[in-house]
């Protein structure tokens, strides 16, 4: 096992990793930017090294400074957390080349799943359901129309060379598709210098369903069942829950198994998440694989009893996964609420500044992962998440009640947070009945 692990991250996930290291008998070392000097999580580290000024690009994203910090602190492994350099295969490679174990997948496995075409190829092999479509680029419009008829309208036309909404068209019928392909090609050519487009199935009322998986270096992989993260705003997850409510157990079992098989195929070690969209008939379509521990991992920990962060460190150190698939059982229901320093009443305006009041909820089934305390100043340089409230209860209904109580107890000021939004969402009929989809939060917000 490692003696010292350097944590190349900040805030709540740095604290989460510190706690995991401590329990494994590992000394955690933190790096920090000067904006995070005095950050409460640094107190809990065995050592803390300032690596640069506030902007991420000059500190948390500076590979050579992080490696230098690992050198001077005599760390033997580096944990990237989420965000920042966590999905940067080059960073994983530099860590390895510099003699530090990267706590995560090998650069090869990370690249293999990060590349969309390659990932789709592996997924097909593993039996992981993917979006039907033209796969390769469209040479002939008539051929594209045939593909669309096969998979059924609506379909989406996407640029092979880029993203961000450009070169994208949704088509509900053949005429729309023909027109859309023309437009998308022009747009893609202008934006990315590459007119290649492809056609995929388009889902209108989907739910976000993702499977937590974890593998070791010996070819083993298990899944820890799924999470439903359909409560989103602008692709930012707000509430996550596990398990996904109302999903047919046979279908759940199949898609979760296929996700585990996918990372087994990719010779992947560490924690990963296979993200899917689920349509109203409970068909699944893989979006992508996140090759790192995820913000919402605690709800999977709650329902399975598995410590995902500790397991990730152990497999990076070469240990075998300490459990088989048959050891993993779902117990109860869990929800996570991302407490963001944003004002939901004012278009989610960021709320950096001094936290004067921080009264955390407690009692049975309540877990709080946060680096914040009264007197902490939320810096303007990083993301607005100031904590995660994780609620575990025997059933989804009890989980909602327990969450409402905890949110009512949770008092933060004078900065505003997303707490009032969650108190509202938990009373929304669509959510309560699990009849929601990935757009319901935005529709609700637009309607008021």
């Amino acid at each position, binding site marked *: 096992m490692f003696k010292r692990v350097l944590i190349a991250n900040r805030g709540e996930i740095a604290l989460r990793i510190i706690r995991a290291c*401590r329990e494994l008998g590992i000394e955690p070392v933190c790096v920090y930017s*000067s*904006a995070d*000097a*005095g*950050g*409460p999580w*640094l*107190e*809990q*580290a*065995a*050592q*803390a*090294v*300032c*690596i*640069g*000024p*506030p902007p991420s690009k000059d*500190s948390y994203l500076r590979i*050579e*400074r992080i*490696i*230098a*910090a690992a*050198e*001077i*602190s005599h760390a033997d492994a580096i944990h990237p957390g989420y965000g920042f350099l966590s999905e940067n295969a080059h960073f994983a490679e530099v860590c390895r080349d*510099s003699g530090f174990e990267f706590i995560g997948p090998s650069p090869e496995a990370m690249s293999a799943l990060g590349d969309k075409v390659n990932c789709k190829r592996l997924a097909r092999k593993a039996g992981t359901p993917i979006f039907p479509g033209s796969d390769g680029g469209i040479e002939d419009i008539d051929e594209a129309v045939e593909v669309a008829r096969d998979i059924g309208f609506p379909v989406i036309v996407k640029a092979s060379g880029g993203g961000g909404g450009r070169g994208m068209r949704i088509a509900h019928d053949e005429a729309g598709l023909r027109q859309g392909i023309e437009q998308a090609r022009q747009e893609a050519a202008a934006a990315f210098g590459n007119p290649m487009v492809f056609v995929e199935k388009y889902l209108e009322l989907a739910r976000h369903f993702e499977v937590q998986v974890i593998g070791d270096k010996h070819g083993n992989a298990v899944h820890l069942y799924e999470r439903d993260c359909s409560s989103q705003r602008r692709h930012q997850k707000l509430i996550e829950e596990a398990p996904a409510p109302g999903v047919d157990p046979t279908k759940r079992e199949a898609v979760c198994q296929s996700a585990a098989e996918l990372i087994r195929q990719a010779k992947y070690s560490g924690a990963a998440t296979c993200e899917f969209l689920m349509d109203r008939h409970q068909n699944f379509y893989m979006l992508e694989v996140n090759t790192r521990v995820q913000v919402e991992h605690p709800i999977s920990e709650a329902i399975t009893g598995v410590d995902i962060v500790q397991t990730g460190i152990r497999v990076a150190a070469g240990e075998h996964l300490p459990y088989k698939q048959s050891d993993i059982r779902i117990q109860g229901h869990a929800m996570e609420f991302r407490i963001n320093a944003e004002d939901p009443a004012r278009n989610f305006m960021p709320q950096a500044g001094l936290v004067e009041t921080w009264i955390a909820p407690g009692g049975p089934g309540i877990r709080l992962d946060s680096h914040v*305390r*009264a*007197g*902490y*100043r939320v810096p303007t340089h990083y993301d607005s998440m100031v904590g995660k409230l994780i609620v575990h209860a025997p059933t989804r209904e009890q989980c909602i009640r327990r969450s409402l109580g905890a949110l009512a107890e949770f008092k933060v000021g004078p900065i505003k947070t997303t707490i009032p939004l969650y108190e509202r969402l938990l009373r929304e009929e669509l959510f309560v009945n699990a009849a929601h989809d990935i757009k319901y939060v935005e529709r609700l917000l637009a309607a008021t």
Partner: protein
Amino acid sequence: MMDIRKLKELVRLMVENDLTELDLRDKEEQATIRRQTTLSAPQLIHHGSSAQSTPQVPALATGSAGATAVGRPSPDGSEGQGDTGLEAIESPMVGTFYAASGPDKPPLVAVGTVVEPNTVVCLLEAMKIFNEIKAERAGTIAKVLVKNGQAVEFGQQLFLIRPS
């Protein structure tokens, strides 16, 4: 400048009564003292234990604005300035400090060495690359704050220099 005893009296008054700010001015003198009560921003612990500790009363920020404690990176990453008119050469990177350009060589600078902006004052090694650190100003080395072979972090003060 205000009598130091009077100042101490004021500070004691603040601490005892939980004052957070005191601003006094008349024709002759002016004093502004701020103090953080309640939870102080926690001190960074280097190689520290994680034993329980009650929070400490934070240091008072008196004296000239922008003063930074020697040996600590300044919170905003800017250069600090000592009380006594000395300026600090801070580490622009993370690495290991070397005073000389080789194991058998004499130190590049020592207390009393007169330096120009281009004078190399030390080497910092990271990822097996030795980086020359220049004085960036003219003056005389007044103090060497780190030892040969010592690990330094970003913003850490390496030398104090008396500007010429």
